[in-house]
């Protein structure tokens, strides 16, 4: 028994602090294997550059400001996720640029000593890239059309993304199997639905991600698309394409379940997930790129605390009302019994 300052004096033995990050990285390995299969080792080089950028910022930060902790596992994970959200054929320096912005943001809060704001830092990096380099971020390469070159810029076969197909309303050449295996143009790691769902199951089983957020996001997004379809006809299929194509599925599974992004209460997680699903599907119709999930996650992660508080207050009020109702019911029942007993006694 180790000593603690106050009760409880007996606590859980394992320390899952670093375990959850490692498990999330393990989950990403499946996506990496598929990405290398489709695009070649270029994606590994891009990831390596991102991690090196992340490490450089961490070292710089620790040298300049005597900040403890050189390279953190969660920083590396964020770098890898941001790299997978960039197109495979984009300039090799694109992802590291996004990682730089993300790391400046993270290091600033770490140096200042202030608590890290509860927002998705990956989304910050992604929005910076989408805003500053739209021509790089939203031009996708046909997967499986041969491995891409290892130079700074690669010339792959350009292809239309799922979002563009849906905007055009032309799904005549669409193969559902491609949707599941990721044989579609889109962000590097965000198109293989089967692999991403397998990653989600792995993380949920290992308890390194809450299951409520991705499930609520996917179900609410699917229902929204069923009610308000973009392409008329073949309804269940188009709704499935909406949630599995593009970066929505990837963001719902990885970005929205990143620690520090989602609300902490159970009800808050459901509300957060539902809002991600509905708002992403709504907003993607108005954005030229059709990629709305990171923007929505950034906005909602900033409001995560308020979602938690709001849900808690509503549930608390309901609980108080229910308790009052049940206790008044019991009182009436008891009074009736006493009345009956006294009448019988008389």
């Amino acid at each position, binding site marked *: *028994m*180790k*000593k*603690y*300052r*106050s*009760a*409880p*004096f*007996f*606590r*859980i*033995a*394992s*320390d*899952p*602090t670093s375990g*959850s990050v490692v498990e999330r990285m393990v989950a990403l390995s499946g996506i990496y294997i598929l990405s290398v299969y489709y695009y070649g080792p270029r994606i590994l080089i891009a990831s390596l550059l991102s991690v090196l950028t992340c490490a450089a910022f961490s070292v710089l930060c620790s040298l300049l400001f005597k900040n403890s902790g050189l390279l953190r596992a969660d920083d590396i994970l964020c770098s890898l996720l941001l790299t997978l959200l960039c197109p495979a054929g984009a300039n090799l320096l694109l992802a590291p640029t996004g990682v730089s912005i993300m790391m400046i943001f993270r290091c600033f809060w770490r140096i200042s000593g202030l*608590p890290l704001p*509860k927002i998705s830092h990956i989304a910050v990096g992604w929005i910076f890239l989408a805003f500053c380099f739209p021509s790089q971020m939203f031009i996708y390469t046909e997967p499986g059309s041969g491995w891409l070159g290892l130079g700074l810029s690669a010339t792959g076969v350009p292809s239309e993304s799922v979002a563009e197909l849906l905007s055009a309303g032309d799904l005549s050449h669409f193969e559902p199997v491609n949707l599941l295996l990721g044989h579609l143009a889109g962000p590097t790691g965000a198109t293989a639905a089967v692999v991403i769902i397998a990653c989600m199951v792995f993380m949920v089983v290992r*308890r390194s991600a*809450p*299951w*409520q957020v991705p499930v609520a996001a996917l179900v609410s997004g699917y229902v929204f698309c069923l009610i308000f379809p973009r392409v008329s006809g073949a309804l269940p299929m188009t709704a499935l394409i909406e949630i599995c194509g593009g970066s929505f599925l990837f963001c719902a599974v990885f970005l929205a379940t990143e*620690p*520090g*992004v*989602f609300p*902490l*209460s*159970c009800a808050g*997680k459901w509300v957060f997930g539902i809002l991600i699903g509905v708002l992403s599907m709504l907003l993607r119709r108005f954005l030229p790129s059709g990629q709305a999930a990171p923007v929505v996650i950034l906005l909602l992660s900033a409001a995560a*605390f308020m979602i*938690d*508080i709001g849900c*808690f*207050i509503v*549930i*608390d009020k309901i*609980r108080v009302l229910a308790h009052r109702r049940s206790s008044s019911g*019991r009182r009436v029942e*008891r009074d009736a*019994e*006493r009345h009956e007993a006294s009448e019988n006694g008389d």
Partner: protein
Amino acid sequence: MSFFQKKGIVPVSSPDDTPSGAPEKIGMPDFVVLPLSYGGEMLPVVSPGGYLKAGQPFARAVNGFTGISPFSGSIGDIRGIRHPFLGSVPAAALLISPGSETSREEIPPDFNPGAFTPEQIISSAMVRGITDETDMEHLGVKLSRAREQGAVLLLADAAEDEPFSGAALSVLTANTREVLTGLELAAAACGATKTAIALFMRAGSPPPDPDITGIELVYFGPQYPCAPEKKRFLEKNRAVAVGVQALAALARAVALNEGQTEAVVSVGGNLPEKPSNLRASFGTPLKALIAHCKIHYPSYSVVAGGSLRGKLCSPETPLSPGITALLPVEDKPAQRSTRCIDCSSCCEVCPSGLLPIHIMKTFRSGNLGLLVHLNPGLCTGCGCCSYVCPSRLELTQSVRRAAQAVSDRRDNEGGLEK
């Protein structure tokens, strides 16, 4: 996964560290320290230098509750002590006369609990100083209130949910007749028509089977704490729960005119050579109980009252009603906490549905207005949030402090309005 699970935790503890078996009587100490006030304000009826016989009162409350001396001896000095559960209270040192220990009598076989009126039973509980070990309430007061509220079911509470505790089950198994007699007497006192025994099922262990026939056994668990589940059961069945040690003491008080002067305490954990259930008199220093279990460890601290809800106290602390478990812990530096990783584990396990980490952060930021909405007053202090926290944050402490701050603010506002 909390959506499919009951709230709370399943503490992982080795069955070897939890005492089982009948309580062993520990040897008579040289002196005992009798707190002169417990479970309410009491007035001492002894003075320094006086002589006290075993079974005589040493303090009395306004409501008639009386503290009974376990031994004969002379009163030393009376001075203030700091007790983990009673707070700062005056206490009298009783220097025990050699040979004043009495043998434990059995309740006569022809004893008839039905021969006593509710008033006689309640009066006996007060005069013989019986305290319910589960909530530290005077048993007589509790039974009177239950009678007024029209209790239907009386529950003998042996559902000890804390790890390393086995005192209640030990009393139930070793003193079954006393407990059942006490249960019958208590049911008669509060007008309950039905009786039952509450037990706790530990995860990974078979459900306890105390070999009692003709009485309903109610099982709670394996989730800790079982208090919310028990509360729902009590409300649903219009029941009142009384600890088994108090019931056994009630039986002895009515049948043998004996006061409640001793308690059964579990000394558990991995430090004692043999975790045991011990029967010791009130006032015995806790170190005497620990020493009985043989700890070959250079320095240790004592946690009184259970590993999850207990309090760290001095080994000199006298045993008092309400202490049913002791846990010796290594005297190491306190575990360091790290920053919150937003894993949400604390919110998932809280049986009261609170958001402990938000309460902690809001309390630290000083935003009392928002803290009021987070309702920290609902915290029961079960310690589940701190138990699961991978960053080892002192969440339970913070939530209790926040609850105090909110309560103080409400009092101030109430005072201003008046």
